[in-house]
């Protein structure tokens, strides 16, 4: 494939950022919005062309004779060549997951660009301050995210990873006059930076022992190459474990160095993907404009951690311990977030916790993926769920944006009974809820079912656990749905008109995403995205996914979802006393869930009381009195000296010549002394 299109995919959003950032304030609001949207639209079309070429062209660059999909370096430039051996490259890696991510990112980003044209102005058509700046940041974010997924080496990925963090900081803190937005953006930045510390150490350890930054050396083909050298069988996890056991991997604190490196890298992923206990930034990040939440906190940035694990999956396969850690962290997070989501009253927070829970689903799926079980079904399922979740969660967030825009509040107690006033929003939101609850034939059903099948293959315990989480998901989503759209509507005060559907720029993305949420489940993912590129099915048609279902798992999960929805219907369809009764029956549990299990308070206690009080204060004292003192002393001495020698620069030329002569003689003398 010619590198022209991939270069444009990266360059266009960057150009848009520069143009809108530098000259945006001179443009009309409308022009800036149209320009940004058009730029993203073109990028989206190009990304589709790239992905289509990759998956369906059948070119020998992308697929070999046996039908195995290959990793293809479209280009790979040397960027910083410090020495011959230490070279940092910038490039474009095309493989199943990066092609998938290109589609997801550009689609959602385009929808959000389009949607923001309507969202970022009030009912009278007055534009938000900094509208152009907003589009510039959106373009920067899209650029960073695209650069992250196509990175050819882990260092390039890290650079874009940080850029993503920085641009999301700018977007979350977009309303920078609001103190809560500022502190939320700071919180997100600090927590993810803390996680990135682990990521960076992991990268350094990994590259030190493997001697390479390049992904192509880590992934299946590269691993197979190594296997040929060492004469071991790596088609099964057993063979890989044997290989690890026989290879001289250094050991550090009870784990092999590889395990440590992978766990540290996973820590970076935990930060970005909001896994417990680093999840605390995501609910607060809802302070940003709602389209930003749809883009960053539903579809793209938060799945970066999943993408990272998927990218290094062949390496993780070598270390079962790391995969088990991922499974446990994912399962705990999924359950925790689902519990909390049942009690929140802010519509965006419910969606935020639901996102955490769904991302955790993907993590669990990766954690249980093994090559010997259905060709690594869990890997495929995680990517499938990533795709479908991006679509329906962006849909839900954009619906929430439409509601907030119409009502002017995030609190759903202020909404109630909107189904008559906002029919389009109502229908699309319902589709989103059905999809996330896992009702056939909506997208979420298929992907979630694949995940549960994969979990079932690995462990019955986690299967029951995750099914319970799936039930909770259906429950809290329908609770939200009924509270917003049913119940008795509030009286509209005199002089206000009733809430209504939003302009077409906002409803069109909803409709498109709703349609995708209906049909995305039928995409035969097993033939497109697998961990080693081998297709899962012999031949595909529209009903391949239906045929491939494990109906014993599927019928159970469907039953669980329907029961959960019925329960939600009973409790929340009309205003009644059942919820209050339940709350009173389990006061402690409700309290803990409502306060998000007091994680934030725990962090506050650790940082303020323990770290600040017991460590920082003594250090600060030492810094102020001992270190600053000596530094001030040095500065004072420097000033004194420079004052004292000022007389040397007298302007007297005879004196200059004398100094010159003495200098020559001293120079000779010093050298002569050194010689002797």
């Amino acid at each position: 494939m010619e590198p022209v299109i991939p270069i444009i995919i990266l360059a266009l959003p960057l150009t848009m950022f520069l143009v809108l950032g530098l000259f945006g304030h001179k443009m009309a609001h409308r022009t800036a919005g149209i320009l940004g949207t058009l730029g993203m639209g073109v990028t989206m079309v190009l990304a589709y062309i790239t992905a289509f070429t990759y998956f369906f062209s059948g070119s020998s660059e992308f697929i070999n004779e046996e039908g195995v999909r290959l990793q293809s370096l479209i280009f790979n430039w040397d960027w910083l060549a410090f020495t011959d051996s230490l070279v940092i490259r910038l490039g474009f890696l095309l493989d199943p997951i990066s092609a998938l991510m290109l589609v997801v990112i550009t689609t959602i980003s385009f929808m959000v660009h389009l949607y923001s044209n309507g969202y970022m102005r009030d009912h009278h058509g007055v534009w938000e301050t900094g509208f152009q700046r907003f589009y510039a940041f959106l373009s920067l974010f899209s650029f960073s995210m695209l650069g992250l997924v196509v990175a050819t080496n882990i260092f390039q990925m890290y650079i874009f990873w940080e850029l993503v963090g920085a641009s999301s900081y700018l977007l979350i803190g977009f309303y920078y006059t609001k103190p809560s937005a500022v502190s939320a953006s700071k919180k997100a930045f600090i927590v993810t930076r803390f996680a990135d510390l682990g990521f960076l150490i992991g990268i350094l350890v990994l590259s030190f022992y493997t001697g390479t930054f390049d992904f192509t050396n880590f992934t299946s083909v590269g691993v197979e190459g190594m296997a040929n050298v060492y004469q071991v069988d790596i088609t099964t996890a057993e063979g890989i474990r044997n290989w690890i056991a026989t290879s001289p991997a250094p050991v550090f604190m009870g784990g092999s160095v590889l395990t440590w490196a992978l766990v540290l890298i996973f820590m970076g992923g935990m930060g970005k993907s909001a896994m417990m206990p680093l999840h605390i930034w995501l609910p607060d990040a809802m302070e940003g404009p709602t389209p930003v939440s749809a883009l960053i906190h539903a579809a793209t940035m938060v799945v970066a951690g999943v993408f990272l694990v998927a990218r290094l999956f062949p390496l993780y396969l070598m270390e079962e311990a790391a995969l088990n850690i991922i499974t446990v962290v994912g399962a705990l997070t999924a359950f925790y977030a689902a519990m909390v989501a049942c009690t929140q009253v802010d519509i965006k927070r419910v969606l935020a916790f639901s996102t955490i829970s769904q991302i955790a689903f993907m993590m669990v799926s990766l954690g249980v993926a093994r090559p010997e079980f259905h060709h690594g079904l869990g890997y495929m399922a995680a990517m499938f769920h990533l795709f479908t979740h991006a679509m329906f969660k962006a849909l839900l967030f954009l619906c929430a944006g439409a509601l907030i825009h119409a009502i002017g509040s995030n609190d759903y107690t202020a909404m109630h009974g909107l189904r008559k006033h906002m029919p389009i929003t109502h229908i699309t939101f319902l589709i989103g809820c059905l999809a996330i609850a896992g009702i056939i034939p909506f997208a979420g059903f298929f992907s979630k079912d694949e995940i549960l099948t994969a979990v079932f293959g690995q462990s019955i315990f986690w299967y029951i656990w995750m099914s319970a989480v799936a039930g909770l998901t259906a429950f809290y989503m329908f609770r939200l749905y009924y509270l917003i759209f049913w119940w008795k509507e509030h009286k509209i005060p005199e002089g206000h008109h009733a809430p209504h559907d939003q302009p077409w720029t906002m409803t069109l993305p909803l409709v498109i995403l709703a349609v995708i949420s209906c049909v995305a489940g039928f995409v035969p993912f097993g033939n497109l995205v697998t961990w080693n590129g081998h297709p899962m099915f012999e031949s595909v048609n529209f009903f391949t996914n239906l045929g491939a279902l494990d109906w014993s798992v599927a019928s159970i999960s469907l039953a669980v979802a329907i029961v959960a929805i019925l329960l939600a219907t009973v409790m929340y369809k009309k205003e009644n006393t059942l919820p209050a009764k339940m709350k009173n029956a389990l006061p402690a549990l409700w309290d803990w869930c409502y306060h998000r299990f007091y994680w934030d308070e725990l962090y506050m206690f650790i940082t303020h009381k323990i770290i600040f009080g017991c460590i920082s204060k003594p250090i600060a004292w030492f810094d102020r009195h001992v270190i600053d003192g000596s530094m001030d002393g040095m500065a004072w001495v420097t000033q004194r000296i420079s004052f004292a020698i000022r007389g040397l620069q007298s302007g007297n030329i005879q004196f200059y010549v004398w100094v010159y002569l003495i200098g020559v003689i001293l120079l000779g003398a010093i050298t002569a002394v050194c010689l002797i």
Partner: protein
Amino acid sequence: MDYSQFLAMKQEIALLVVFLLVFLYDTFMPRKALGATSAVTSVLFLLFTVWSFIWGVPADSVEAFAGMYVTSPVCAMIKNILNVGVLIVLIQATSWVNSEFQIVRRGEYYELLLVTLFGMYLMISARHFLLFLIGLESASLPLAAMVAFDKHRYESHEAAVKYLMTAVFSSAIFMMGLSFVYGLSGSLYFEDIAMQLGSQSNTMLVMALAFVVSGLGFKLSLVPFHLWTADVYQGAPTPVTSYLSVISKGAAAFAFLVILVQAFGQFYSQVWEWMLYALIIATITIGNLFAIRQRNMKRFLAFSSISQAGYIMLGVVGCNEMGLAAMMYYILVYIFSNLAAFGVIGAIENKTGMVEMTDYNGLSKTNPWLSFSMTLAMFSLAGIPPFAGFFSKFFIFTSAINQGSIAIYVLVLIALINTIISLYYYLLVVKAMYISPEEPRIGKFRSTCSERVSLWVTVLGIILLGIVSCFYNTIFNAASLSELFGFIA
């Protein structure tokens, strides 16, 4: 005589052609056409620069006139680097030479400048001390005239006299050193000197070397041969100061390395390594200490350029291809950073006549773009990532550390401490422009077209030279082909 050997000097000859064209244009064109002198010179020089990049670089080392003159890919590379700097200086000088006081002699500015550049070319390519001396003098004497260009300003005269006197004095010392060397070796060819002297050093040789080093140290304004610098930089017109501070320094640094390596290479570890250590430590530290207290921007940059010369010398310490590459890259980056700073100073001086640091208070409110350029220049000079100055410092420290002795570690450590000190005074300027609460003294104004072009070029250079790696790679490739280090034992 074989006249074809003149072909080896094609860069010099092309430069002479440019000079003659400018000279003829200035002398014989009707008065009406003279308004275009600046444009004509800049365009001619631009053509020459481009030509020299594409066709001026020899494929291999070529010598002429019985080995007195040598050119090679490295020599052509440093000449090209200087050309880029001169081009920027020429563009920056446009509004000054066309000002009321200078307009009658604007041709002279260009002619004198091109002659000194010719002298520097000879310094770079000379492999015989006689030719080198011709280059040195033709690079020095016209500069004195250029320093005295502002006839209506008393300081300009004083600076010129000071420059001339100290230059003559240092030349005298330098020649005395040469006569010692001639007495010891019986030749003025670099190669012959290296062969005749053997590897035995004696006191006579040490003194001779000290004299030679001091002569070159004067051009580079190394401490303690630097005392003229501040007075001359302050007194001279800004376009001359900027020329002095980057081009003259760059050429001298390269010539310095060539002489030390080619003629005295075998005494590296015994004699001049220690001389260099002493000079570098003194230069960086004293330059920094004085820079802290300066309030006049041109004087301030004079001391900053003294300490920068110390960093440039770190490339010589490495005494290998990597050091050479790092030094040339440092010179390139330094040209862009320093010219950005001088560009801003010149623009403000032309418009308002102000050169004190306190005049810059609150500049960002009235002239945000000038303040922005100045800030980038200061960041780059201080070596803050991701600007080019960071990369140039990084490479030059790396090349020095590669040499590997304890003394080098101490030297680099001192240099690093000094970069922190320098950060302080560079940021003083930024602070004055952005943070100082005082009312801005300099009103809003629009700088001239030529000034804006030159600032755009330098700012782009500061941003791109480091991040885009091909610049360093090209220089490194040219340096690794270098023939210079054959004599190192």
